[in-house]
């Protein structure tokens, strides 16, 4: 099933787009797996997503840990740690 991806801040800049729809293979089970699968595309993806420790995510517009399963997710956002306030 297609998942809508959104990228923010330097993740967005490195990838060069603010989002896209993807259909990851069945063996990509969680957000960390998704990040690794995207990073394997190389180029800006590899640059932005090489280090999962520098990334945070939201699943269906809620902050979530990177080991959150993809099953049932419609929208996943990948971004650096937030810096509001």
């Amino acid at each position: 099933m297609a998942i809508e991806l959104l990228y923010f801040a330097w993740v967005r800049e490195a990838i060069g787009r603010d989002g896209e729809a993807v259909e990851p293979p069945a063996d990509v089970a969680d957000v960390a797996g998704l990040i690794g699968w995207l990073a394997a595309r190389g180029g800006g993806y590899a640059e932005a997503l090489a280090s999962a420790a520098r990334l945070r995510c939201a699943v269906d517009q809620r902050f979530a840990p990177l080991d959150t399963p993809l099953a049932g997710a419609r929208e996943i956002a990948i971004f650096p740690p937030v810096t509001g306030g």
Partner: protein
Amino acid sequence: MSARVILGEADFDAGAELARLEALGGGGVASFTGVVRGGDGLEALRLEIYPGMTLRALEDIVAEAERRWALLGVTLIHRHGPVPAGGRIVFVGVASRHRRAALEACAFLIDWAKSRAPFWKQEMFADGRSRWVEARAADEDAAAAWDASAEHGCP
């Protein structure tokens, strides 16, 4: 409880926001205003948001403050887009019957707004350079400290 949560690009009038809270009939109003620090050629901050999520995250933070403390009013205003050096970015105001709830809730609200809502700050310099601000561990620690004291508050 009067809750006022605003996410927008426009500047705000902190004095008018305080007056609104003072009119609620409580004994105390506490507030925090965040201002863009200048220096080192910094011209502006640009704040990026997650359009589908940021406002709701701020509303959830205000709801959590209401759950923890007995409050008469909360105002949380957070700007996005470009904000020049010296400009206001964020305002937190809390009205309560007693000072402790107002002061604690105000500190909680700004701590969580810094690390529990999707904003990303980018520094824009006069010479054309820009740099994404890195999250500080101390900010996350300050937000997490309120998790540990979840049973605290609410007199």
